[in-house]
C-alpha cells in the first residue's frame, strides 16, 4: 500500500465518517491540512471570520442535521478561540469534532510561537480529547473521536494535530470497529425499571412528562409523542426540549422553569408523578430545589448515569437511550382519562395564559408570533442568541418539530445564534433559517455577515433592538432598583450606534428597519422572500420584560407575572 501524508489521512478519515462540511479558519499550524483540503472536492470548507463562529457553526450544523459537526483552526489563538464554542456544545451535549493544528512535536512544551496546551485547556469542556503525536494513531483517533462524539450522551471531541504529523507519511487503513475499554454506553433500559414506571403510571392521578434535549438528541420525538398520546399524559419541555413535542397539541404545556408557562410550572408542582426524559433538572428548571415537585414520585430516563440523582433524588432511575426506552414504555402503558388533572390544567391555561400587552406599540413578542404566522407550513429553523430575545423566541413561537430550535441552553452563550444559523443553513439549504437576536448579542459575532454573504447563506437576522442588554436590565429593574449598570448600549436613538441597516449593507447584505407595529408583517415577508442574508432591525419597546419569571433561587410556584 502506498503512503500518504497525515493531512491526507485525516481527510480520508473524515470522508469515511461522512463529513461533507467543515467550518474553519486557517493559520500556520494547519497549512498542510488546508492545502490538501483545497485539492479535493468531497468536503467543503466554509471560511468563517472568527474561530468562535466556526465552532458555533459546527454546533448549529449538528443540531439542525443530527450529524456530527466539524470545525478546524490553527494552533494557539485560533484554537483558544474555539473554547467558548466547544463549551457551548459540551453543556448542551452536541456532537462536534474540533480539529486544531498544533506546533511541531519537538516544540510542544517550549512556549513556541502560537502554542497553547489545547488538550489541557479543553479537558473540562470536551467529552474527550486527543493529542496525536504519532501518525500511526491518526486514523484510529478520528474513528474514536466521531464514535465518542455521537454515541451515548453526545458531546464535543477535540483532536490536536501537530503540523509535522500532518506532513509525515504512513499507510492509510481506516479501522472498521471501535474498542474503547472504558466506554460502552448503555442503550437498553432495564426491563424491571420499565415495569416499575408502568406501575407508577397506573397508580398516578396527576402524571407529567418532563422532556429535555435528550429526546431530540436521541431522535425520540416520535416515540415521545406516541407515548404521550397513548397514555394521555401531559407534556412540558425544557428549553432544550423545544420541538420534541408539538406545542400546539392539547397535551402540551409548553416550557417550564424560570421563564416557563405558569401552567407548566403549576403542573410540575402539583404532579404526583414526574417522568423526566433526557432532562437534567437544571437550576433554571427546578428553581429552589427543596420546593421542587414536592408531591411527585420522580422517574428519570437518561443515558448519562451521572445526571441521575445529581440535583433531585430519583425514585425510579432508568439508564438508557430515550428512544429505546420510550419504545418499551409505549408497549406497557395504557390510556387513562385523568379527567380531574386535565380539567385543572385546562383551567390554569385559561386563567394564566402566556400574555403580553396588546396595544399599538412594537413589542418583541408580537414579532415572534408574526414570524410563526408567516412561516407556517414551511421548514423553518429558529436560532437564538441569549437573553430576552431567546426567552421570547422560546415562549411565543410554538415549536412543533425537533431540530428546529437552536439555542445555547447550558452555557448561555451570547453570540451563538448567528453562526449557529449559518451552520444550520449549510446543513439544511432548503430551510428558512432565522436568527432571533438582541442588539447586544448580535454584535458578538456580527463579523459573520461576511461569511453569510460570500457563502451565499440566506440567513435572516431578526434584531429585537431595545438598546439594552435586556435580560440583565430586567433583573436590574426588578431587583437592583433600576440601576442599569453597564447594560445601556444606546442612549436615545437606537438607529445610530451601530446603524444595523447600514452595517448589513456594508457587508453586501440587505438591511430593513421597522419602527412601527403595522410594518412588521411587510418587513418580515420581504426579508423571507429575499435571496440573500437580511438583517431586520426592529426598534422595540425598550423596557419590555419577559414574564412569567421565577426570581433566581425561588420556588417555581412563585412566578412574577408582570403587568400585562
Amino acid at each position, binding site marked *: 500500500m502506498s503512503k500518504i501524508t497525515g493531512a491526507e489521512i485525516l481527510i480520508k478519515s473524515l470522508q469515511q465518517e461522512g463529513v461533507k462540511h467543515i467550518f474553519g479558519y486557517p493559520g500556520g499550524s494547519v497549512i498542510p491540512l488546508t492545502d490538501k483540503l483545497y485539492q479535493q472536492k468531497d468536503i467543503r470548507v466554509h471560511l468563517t471570520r472568527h474561530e468562535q463562529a466556526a465552532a458555533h457553526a459546527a454546533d448549529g450544523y449538528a443540531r439542525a442535521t443530527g450529524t456530527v459537526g466539524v470545525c478546524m483552526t490553527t494552533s494557539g489563538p485560533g484554537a483558544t478561540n474555539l473554547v467558548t464554542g466547544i463549551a457551548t456544545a459540551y453543556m448542551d451535549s452536541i456532537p462536534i469534532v474540533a480539529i486544531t493544528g498544533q506546533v511541531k512535536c519537538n516544540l510542544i512544551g517550549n512556549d513556541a510561537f502560537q502554542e497553547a496546551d489545547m488538550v*489541557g485547556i479543553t479537558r*473540562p469542556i470536551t467529552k*474527550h480529547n486527543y*493529542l496525536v503525536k504519532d501518525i500511526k494513531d491518526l486514523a484510529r483517533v478520528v474513528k474514536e473521536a466521531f464514535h465518542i462524539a455521537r454515541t451515548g450522551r453526545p458531546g464535543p471531541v477535540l483532536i490536536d494535530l501537530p503540523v509535522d504529523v500532518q506532513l509525515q507519511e504512513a499507510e492509510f487503513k481506516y479501522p472498521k470497529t471501535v474498542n474503547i475499554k472504558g466506554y460502552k454506553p448503555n442503550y437498553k433500559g432495564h426491563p424491571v425499571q420499565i415495569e416499575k414506571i408502568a406501575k407508577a403510571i397506573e397508580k398516578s392521578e396527576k402524571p407529567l412528562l418532563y422532556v429535555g434535549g435528550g429526546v431530540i438528541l436521541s431522535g425520540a420525538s416520535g416515540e415521545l409523542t406516541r407515548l404521550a398520546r397513548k397514555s394521555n399524559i401531559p407534556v412540558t419541555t425544557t428549553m432544550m426540549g423545544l420541538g420534541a413535542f408539538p406545542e400546539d397539541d392539547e397535551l402540551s404545556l409548553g416550557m417550564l422553569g424560570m421563564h416557563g408557562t405558569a401552567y407548566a410550572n403549576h403542573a410540575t408542582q402539583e404532579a404526583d408523578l414526574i417522568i423526566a426524559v433526557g432532562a437534567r433538572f437544571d437550576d433554571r428548571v427546578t428553581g429552589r430545589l427543596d420546593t421542587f415537585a414536592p408531591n411527585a414520585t420522580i422517574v428519570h430516563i437518561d443515558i448519562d448515569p*451521572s445526571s441521575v440523582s445529581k440535583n433531585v433524588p430519583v425514585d425510579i432511575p432508568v439508564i438508557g437511550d430515550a428512544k429505546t426506552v420510550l419504545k418499551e414504555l409505549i408497549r406497557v402503558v395504557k390510556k387513562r382519562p385523568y379527567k380531574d388533572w386535565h380539567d385543572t390544567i385546562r383551567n390554569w391555561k385559561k386563567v394564566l395564559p402566556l400574555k403580553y400587552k396588546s396595544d399599538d406599540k412594537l413589542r418583541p413578542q408580537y414579532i415572534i408570533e408574526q414570524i410563526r404566522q408567516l412561516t407556517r407550513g414551511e421548514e423553518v429553523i429558529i436560532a437564538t442568541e441569549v437573553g430576552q430575545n431567546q426567552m421570547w423566541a422560546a415562549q411565543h413561537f410554538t415549536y412543533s418539530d425537533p431540530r428546529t430550535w437552536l439555542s445555547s441552553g447550558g452555557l448561555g452563550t451570547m453570540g451563538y445564534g448567528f453562526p449557529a444559523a449559518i451552520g444550520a443553513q449549510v446543513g439544511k439549504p432548503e430551510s428558512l433559517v432565522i436568527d432571533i437576536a438582541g442588539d447586544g448579542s448580535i454584535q458578538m459575532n456580527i463579523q459573520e455577515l461576511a461569511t453569510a454573504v460570500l457563502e451565499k447563506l440566506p440567513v435572516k437576522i431578526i434584531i429585537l433592538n431595545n438598546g439594552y442588554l435586556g435580560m440583565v436590565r430586567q433583573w436590574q429593574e426588578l431587583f437592583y432598583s433600576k440601576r442599569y449598570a453597564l447594560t445601556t448600549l444606546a442612549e436615545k436613538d437606537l438607529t445610530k450606534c451601530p446603524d444595523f441597516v447600514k452595517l448589513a449593507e456594508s457587508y453586501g447584505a440587505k438591511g430593513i428597519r421597522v419602527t412601527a407595529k403595522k410594518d412588521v408583517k411587510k418587513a418580515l415577508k420581504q426579508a423571507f422572500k429575499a435571496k440573500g442574508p437580511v438583517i431586520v432591525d426592529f426598534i422595540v419597546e425598550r423596557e419590555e420584560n419577559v414574564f412569567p419569571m421565577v426570581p433566581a433561587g425561588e420556588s417555581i410556584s412563585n412566578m412574577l407575572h408582570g403587568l400585562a
Partner: protein
Amino acid sequence: MEKKKKMDKFVVSVLVENKFGVLARVAGLFSARGFNIDSLAVGKTEDPEVSRMTIVVEADERILEQVEKQLNKLIDVIRVQDLTKGDYVARELILLKVRTSDAKVREKVVRVAETTGAEIVDVGKRSITVEDTGDEHKINALMELLRPYGILEIVRTGKVALPSE
C-alpha cells in the same frame, strides 16, 4: 438538600488506561467538581496498559455516588469500585526522618523501629530514616511513638488497596 451532611472517608479503586494525561483528567475532575481527595496513589497493574489508582475521598453518600459516576464518564477510566462497600485490604508506606542528636537517642529510635516492625533505611550523622508499611492505624502509631524525638520530615504514599476475597 439542606440536610446536614456526614462526611466519611471512602476508598475508591479506579482502573484506568495507562496513558499520557490520565492523571490530569482524574485530578481535574476532582477539582472542577469540588470533590475532596484525601490521598491518591497510582501505579501499573499486571496489565502494562492498565494502571490502578487508589483514591481516598472525603464525601457523603450522595457525593460519593457522583464521584463514581463522574469518574466512569471519563473515557480513559475502565472501572470504578468503592472498596469501602465490602472487605478490602489497604496499606500505606511512610518514610520518617527522625532527629538523633546523640547515640542514646539513636539507640532508642532503633529500638522503636525494631519493636514495631519498621525498618531503618538510612542512617545519617544527625538523623535516622525509618520506613514502615501498614494500615493507617499502624502508621499513625509509629508516628506518635517517634514524635517525641523530633520528626524532621515525613512522606506518605497514600493508601493502596485491593478488595479481599
